């Protein structure tokens, strides 16, 4: 158990990066790929920022 905690502590930044990249890849597949369940929301040109209106 201690060795696992030690390993996690030593590789914290690396683990965060892996999680972030995985989240981006999976999130993109889920929401932006042609195979996702939201075909009406596909075009990336629809992307706008909330604060853009100001």
């Amino acid at each position, binding site marked *: 158990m201690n060795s696992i905690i030690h390993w996690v502590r030593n590789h914290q930044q690396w683990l965060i990066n892996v999680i972030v990249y995985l989240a981006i890849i999976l999130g993109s597949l889920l929401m932006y790929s042609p195979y996702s369940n*939201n075909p009406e929301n596909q075009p990336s*040109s629809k992307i706008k920022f*909330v*604060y853009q*209106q*100001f």
Partner: protein
Amino acid sequence: MLPFSSIDFFLLFAILVGLLYLAKVLLHRYIPFSGMLLLISVIYLIFFYPKPFHIAILLIYSYMIYYIFTCLFQIQNKLPGVFLLVLPMIMVKTNTIAANIEWNEFISFAGLSYITFRIVSVYMDALPNSKPVNFFRYTSYLIFTPSLLIGPIDRLNRFSVDLDGGYSRLNSSRFLEGWQMMIFGILYKFIIAEAINRYWLGPIDAGSKEILVMINSMYAYYAYLYFDFAGYSAMAIGLGKIMGIDVPINFNKPFMAVNPQDYWRRWHKSLGDWLKDYFFMPFYKAFTKWKFMKPYPLFRQNVSLFLTFLLMGCWNGFKGNYILSGSIFGVYSVVHNSYIYYCRKNGRDIVFGNLSPLTVKILSIFIMINLTAIAIYVFSGRIPF
């Protein structure tokens, strides 16, 4: 093609940043770093940004006012100059129609508000008898692509220091730091904010008057706004770093804020700083000169605070929800300021008494999250009344 809004933008900037790094190696003797950055911004603006001509006109107009008021006539009173500088923005916000012309069409362009903020800061920071800012530097500062659309609101003096750093500001450690920020920004905006919008905020019936639905709508919008805006800011800071410019941070764990003052140091920080320097301080100084306000420092502070947030609401737009939300933030700050004043006067905490510091901190965070969520909910215009 607006900044960070499509894959095309990222591809374009991969090429332009590549050229910038290539210039560091091959052209550093012929083209200075500042010139190369300006060139990139101008290329993007002319060929890819909507309404480049409008921006060019605003730049020339604002520089003329800056030059005439501060350099030519050295007018001490900044108010007329500021009024002329914010006039285009006011005309757009109020949708002014004069001489049968809808001025919105002629003046409005994406990012007008944020450019106006930066223009005002240049004018306000100009000291009498100081050397005028070079027009190319002025342009470079105002149209710097990463912060062009919605900030963070940088300052010319800080920007100039980075610009003068030259090509040495382009190095691998800064590139990696910027890359890391951009990745977090992409995660926030394109994955988390998008997921919140599609699966949490979107399905909520905003017109429902059921209290639980309204509470759900309130938290959903707050989370969505945070990830959307913080995501953009992180991408802007990241790309800025990659291009050698340290764009100031905008968000720093806002949900950990313990009071309104702390909140504006964490949520849209660059706007909070801007409001403090160019609204709050001038108001406070002006009120100090008023005879009837002189003996009441707390009253002076509170009136200045409230007016600052009220104006912030008006800046978002002359609509009831924006003005009310600004006023609510103003009331929060006034109440907190008075609380601090009376705590100091009584030599004890008049609300939390003898509670442990940790308990006070947890309670404060909980209260702030909910109070700010209410104000942002009003701001969203989703209240069904």
